[in-house]
């Protein structure tokens, strides 16, 4: 047997050895794939929700503590100058013409003076 015959025999041999007709996986392969796709989709959406939930739980106490500290600071700083306790808690200044001019909130305030 020369080299060329050997190559040809070898190729045929290898092809024959793996000849599995029209290759297919087991019955219902497409159904199994789609079931896994659905499970994958569900797992992804659940993991997003779980992750958001976890982050919220982690951040919430810090957010509450910061809000309470801010309210306390505002109440302390207001010292009875606000219209109401609610306004004081939010740090709202009583609106007067003097305050508005003083803060430069009114446009052209300088030109009036």
């Amino acid at each position: 047997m020369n080299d060329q015959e050997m190559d040809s025999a070898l190729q045929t041999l290898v092809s024959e050895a793996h000849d599995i007709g029209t290759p297919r996986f087991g019955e219902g392969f497409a159904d199994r794939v789609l079931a896994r796709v659905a499970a994958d989709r569900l797992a992804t959406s659940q993991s997003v929700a779980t992750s958001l939930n976890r982050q919220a739980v982690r951040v919430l106490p810090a957010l509450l503590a910061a809000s309470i500290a801010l309210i306390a600071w505002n109440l302390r700083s207001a010292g009875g100058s606000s219209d109401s306790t609610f306004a004081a808690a939010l740090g709202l200044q009583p609106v007067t013409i003097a305050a508005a001019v003083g803060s430069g909130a009114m446009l052209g305030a300088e030109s009036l003076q």
Partner: protein
Amino acid sequence: MTDTDTDAGLIARARRGDDEAFRLLVVRYEPVVAATVIGMLGRGDDADDVGQETFIRFHRALDSFREESTLKTYLVRIAMNLSLNALKSRRRGALRFISRDQAETPVPDAAVPAVALDDGDERRSMVRRAVAMLGPRHQPVVVLRLLQDLTTKETAQALGIPEGTVLSRLSRAMQELKVTLAPYMRSGAITEDR
């Protein structure tokens, strides 16, 4: 074939969440993926799992899939990478749990009489083992080029290597197979049943 039945049409529908379109793609490309995976791993649950995983990966990548390469070579590439990973896991498992003697893959031995190969199934099994022993560089080339009849260019695209490398690896793989199977070829045991 309508526009929506082409690969591009089905991919576009699948991207919009149409599972029926994705099912059609799975049915259309199952033979290509099966030939790759079964060629690399043989039949069995492993092969089925790798086949499923191939299509799951494709589904996850639907939005980023660009039709620069054909879907066939794209899927073959995923299937081949997953098959190579499965082979690695198998080898690790074999090394861990099986004794050294058992772990050794049976190699066709020149001392074994050619008569032992007269049985077709046994002969096929031995050739498959010889191909499996080629290793992770040469086996994929043989599977894609000889068993799946992919062109050299398609094989190169699927494996992500230059065409020249495909040819050189195929040549080396054939040399290895020749050495391994030569005793039987000379004896005529391999050709006599054809």
